[in-house]
């Protein structure tokens, strides 16, 4: 976390009532292989509080109906609930208008939507799309497809050995040919928080549009799209305590309005004849077909849950926890942390001498500890650090110091098995 805490570490850990928070997440009391679950795979997906589970259940029990089309009681109720979520999202990221909030399936679909509508229109042969060396595959492949189709070029901003973007190189790459910059706010493989505000300003000086992949930032940082001044911001509900299958594409109104539609179908039209179709207004122009209503409403409950938390306390707590985990894990003989940026959130990627991450994952699983192993959908990051894979522990607000100690003991067990 980037916020500097004025409070002493131990006080922060005490002030934040993590035991109470944990009670909100029923899955956390599970036993795995006979041991209490330690869930440290939050960058893959977060767990869901009971209120989110209830909201989905309640929707199917007493509200289920299609939206935007019926005059009957249930349809109006479902429509209202669903549209309320849009307002919650707008407030959550401080967008100017609900018309700037497009619902999608997730981060991946959000990026693909922009690449195949804005991108298709704005990018021509010889143009360049700029991404960083730490992107998730979902912020690489859609641009590759686009560049191939258009005869454009994908350029990559290099990162240093700590896993930080090299800003000088970024400035050199930003040029007259650059049409769009697409960057992770926080890296899922390294945990780096990128200086996106500065990078957005630099791009705008050259008149270049910027998309921010906020999948890993949204659960940990305070995101204000107007303060950042990004042109697009995308994220997934499931990484921020909401359900899978729902995501958000934020875009500035004028840019969205000028974009061609994405998919064609119901809901995205005003009128259809065989000769001509008039597209609907924002945000519906980009939301063809019946959306994921139930999970959208579940996402609304997640946003309510977040809204009642003391976000400052959460940030400080997560920051302390990450520092503690970094200290403990890096203190183990033979462990090397990959991604040591000054500004980090949530993620500790590591390798262990002589043991493949896959074996670490299996042994930790036997201890009831869930981490991710592999390339984390960021193979170029693995190539950059010349490793096949890493083991990754990623933290959320419900994790505890005691769980970090269980992780450390688990890693000791791995060492025991292999030596």
């Amino acid at each position: 976390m980037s916020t500097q805490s004025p409070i002493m570490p131990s006080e922060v850990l005490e002030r934040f009532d993590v035991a109470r928070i944990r009670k909100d997440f029923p899955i956390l009391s599970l036993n795995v292989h006979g041991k209490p679950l330690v869930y440290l795979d939050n960058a893959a997906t977060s767990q869901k509080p009971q209120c989110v589970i209830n909201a989905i259940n309640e929707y199917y029990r007493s509200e289920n109906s299609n939206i935007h089309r019926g005059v009957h009681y249930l349809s109006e109720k479902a429509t209202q609930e669903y549209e309320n979520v849009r307002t919650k999202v707008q407030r959550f990221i401080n967008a100017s208008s609900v018309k700037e909030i497009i619902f999608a399936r997730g981060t991946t679909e959000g990026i693909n939507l922009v690449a195949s509508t804005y991108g298709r229109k704005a990018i021509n042969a010889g143009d360049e799309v700029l991404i960083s060396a730490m992107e998730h595959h979902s912020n690489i492949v859609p641009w590759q497809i686009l560049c191939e189709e258009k005869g454009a070029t994908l350029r990559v901003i290099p990162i240093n050995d700590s896993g930080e973007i090299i800003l000088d190189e970024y400035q050199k790459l930003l040029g007259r040919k650059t049409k769009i910059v697409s960057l992770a706010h926080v890296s899922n493989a390294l945990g780096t928080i990128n200086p996106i505000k500065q990078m957005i300003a630099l791009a705008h000086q050259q008149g270049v549009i910027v998309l921010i992949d906020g999948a890993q930032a949204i659960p940990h940082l305070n995101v204000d799209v107007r303060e950042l001044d990004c042109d697009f911001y995308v994220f997934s509900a499931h990484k921020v305590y909401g359900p899978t299958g729902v995501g958000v594409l934020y875009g500035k109104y004028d840019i969205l309005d000028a974009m061609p539609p994405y998919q064609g179908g119901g809901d995205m039209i005003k009128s259809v004849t065989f000769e001509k179709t008039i597209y609907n207004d924002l945000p519906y122009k980009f939301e063809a077909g019946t959306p994921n209503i139930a999970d959208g409403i579940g996402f609304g409950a997640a946003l309510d849950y977040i809204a009642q938390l003391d976000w400052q306390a959460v940030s400080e707590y997560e920051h302390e926890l990450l520092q503690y985990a970094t200290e403990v894990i890096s203190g183990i003989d033979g462990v090397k942390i990959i991604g040591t940026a000054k500004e980090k959130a949530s993620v500790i990627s590591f390798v262990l001498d002589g043991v493949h991450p896959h074996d670490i994952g299996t042994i930790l699983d036997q201890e009831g500890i869930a981490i991710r192993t592999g390339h984390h959908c960021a193979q170029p990051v693995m190539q950059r650090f010349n490793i096949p894979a890493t083991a990754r522990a990623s933290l959320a607000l419900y994790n505890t110091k005691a769980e970090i100690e269980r992780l450390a003991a688990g890693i000791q067990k791995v060492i025991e098995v292999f030596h």
Partner: protein
Amino acid sequence: MSELRSLYQEIILDHNKNPRNFKKLENADRVVEGYNPLCGDHYTIYLKLKDDRIEEITFDGGGCAISKASASVMSSILKGKTKAEAEELFETFHKLVIGELKGLDSMDELGKLAAFSGVSEFPARVKCASLAWHTMKSALESDKKVVSTE
């Protein structure tokens, strides 16, 4: 710990640390790459065939302990075997790691392969154990010199 010990048996740890036949084979008749995109395990298997026999088999590459030990054990077992014998061993090994090997009087019949009997308790690791074997099989089946498999 006992579950873990049944997966990470001594033979596996030993072959992981000191893999046998771990080298590129010059003048190989078949060079086949095996890759598991999920975890990044990546091996190349080199075969030298004489008539119907595997005269020489080596491998290189890298991955987890299970996949590496499996490749190593496989290479030491298959040297000198006929194609038919190798394919039969493939079937046996496959059944073993998915927990469907029945009608054995004792694990002794399996020799070193028995070290992989614990894999069936770890469904996520079956692919690791099988990678080298699948790669070898496609090497035998193909008449091309270089094959790639996933």
